[in-house]
C-alpha cells in the first residue's frame, strides 16, 4: 500500500506540467486556483491518474476535491477499498 506522501509525489508528476514556472507544488496546492485547471482538464488528468495507480476514481467523488492533498487522500482511500 502506497503512503500518502508516495501518492502525492506521483501525482505531482502529472500536475507539474500544468503548473506555471516557479510554482511549487505541495499538498495544499489548489487544483483550480493555483494550477488553473478547469473541470474538463481535471477529469482528463484523472484518466492518467487512474492508470498510474490502477484505481477507478468516480467523477462524483471529485466534487469534494480541491487540493492535491485531497486528491491523494481520495486515491489512497480507493486503493484501500480495492
Amino acid at each position: 500500500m502506497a503512503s500518502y506522501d508516495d501518492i502525492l509525489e506521483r501525482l505531482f508528476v502529472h500536475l507539474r506540467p500544468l503548473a506555471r514556472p516557479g510554482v511549487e507544488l505541495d499538498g495544499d496546492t489548489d487544483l483550480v486556483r493555483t494550477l488553473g485547471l478547469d473541470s474538463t482538464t481535471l477529469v482528463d488528468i484523472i484518466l492518467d491518474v487512474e492508470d498510474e495507480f490502477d484505481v477507478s476514481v468516480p467523477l462524483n467523488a471529485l466534487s469534494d476535491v480541491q487540493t492535491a492533498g485531497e486528491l491523494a487522500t481520495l486515491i489512497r482511500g480507493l486503493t484501500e477499498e480495492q
Partner: protein
Amino acid sequence: MSLLDRLRTLSQDREALLHGESDPFGVPVEEVYSATEARIGGRTVVLAGTNNYLGLTFDPGCIQAAHDALAASGTGTTGSRMANGSYASHLELERELAEFYGCRSAIVFSAGYLANLGMISALVGPGDVALIDADCHASIYDGCRLSGADILRFRHNDPESLDKRLGRLGEQTARTLIIVEGLYSMLGDRARLEEIVELKRRHGCFLMVDEAHSLGVLGENGRGLAEETGTAADVDFIVGTFSKSLGGVGGFSVSDRPELELVRYSSRPYIFTASPAPSVVASTREALSILRSRPELRERLWDNARRLYGKLEELGYRLGPDVSPVVAARLDTPDQALALWRGLIDEGVYVNVMLPPATPAGQSLVRCSVSAAHTPEQIDRICEAFAALREQASSEAGLSRHRVPRAPEA
C-alpha cells in the same frame, strides 16, 4: 461573492474570447429558405452546420402531416403523458419505432437531451456504475449525474481502457451500464462497437448506445451503428433523437428488454415533462417512414460526405479520423477557429464552431455537417470557401488576426 457573480464571470470570458466581434453562438437566422439555405446577416448562406442529415425539414409530406395534426389535435398536449394521457399518435410513433428496430418496445421523450437524462437516471442509481466514453455528449454526463450512480470514464474509443476499468469493478459489473455513442458528434468518428460488445459480454454488464447522429446515417436500413456492425442483439438499450435525421424535436429509446416499459414509472424527465406536440409527432412519423422507404437519401448523404471530406483533406485541413457526415476541421487555438468560422460566413457558408471545454481534449473545431439535400454545387461552394480561406491564410499578407486563420497543418 454574490449570487450572480458566477454569470458575470462568464461575461468577461466571453468578451476575452470574442474581442468585440460577432458571436458565433446563437447566430440570428433571419429566414430559413430550405434545408440547406437561410438568410444570415442579410445574405443568403449555405447551411452546413445543422445536422439535418436527410434534409427532411422542408419535405412536403412531413409538412403536410404536421399541418394535418395541428388542425386535428391542436398545438400542444399541455402536460405529461402520466398526467394528461397518451395521444394515439404517441403510441403509434412508439409502435413504429419498435417495429423499425425490430425491438419489443419503444418509449418517446420530449427531447433528445431528455431521452438520455430519462433513460440513464432510470437504469442506474446509487450503488450502480455508469461507465462512459470520455467523449460522450453532455446529456449523457448530465443523466449520469442525475442518477446518483458512480460515474467512471474510459478513454475515448479505447477498448483496452474500458477493459481495465471493467476488470477493477469485479462483481459490480452486474450493476454496470456502459454508455457509448454510435457516431460522435464532435469529430464524426464511430464507436468500436464490436470490441465494446465483446467486453460487455465477457464482463456481464449492460450496454446503451446513443445513435443520435447515426440514425438514418449508418446501417443498411439506417438504424445506426449497431445495425451496421451487426451488434444490435447485444445492445440492451438504444437511444436516439428526432432532431437530426428526422427533422423534428424529441427523443426515444428502444429495447428488447421488457423492463423498458417500467422506465415510464421511474424516469423523472419522462414523468415531469409535457409530451411532444401532435404536429411534431406527425412530422416525425412521416420522416421515419421516408427514412425507411427512400434509401437513396442515405446514398446521397454519403456521396456528399465523401466529397466534402475528400476535398478538405486535399486542402490540408486536419479532420476527424473517419469519413462521415460530420466533417470537423481541427484548429490550434480558439482564435483560429473563430476566424475561420467568420471567414466562412463572409464567404456565404454557415458551419459550427466548437471550443473548449465543450470539445474533446481541448480542441478548437470548425464543424460542418452535410445533408442529403445539399446539391453537389452547394458542396463545391462549401469547399471553395474553405479553399479561399486556406489560401489567404497561407499568404499571411495584410490579414488581421481575427479575420483569417493560421494555415492548418496538413
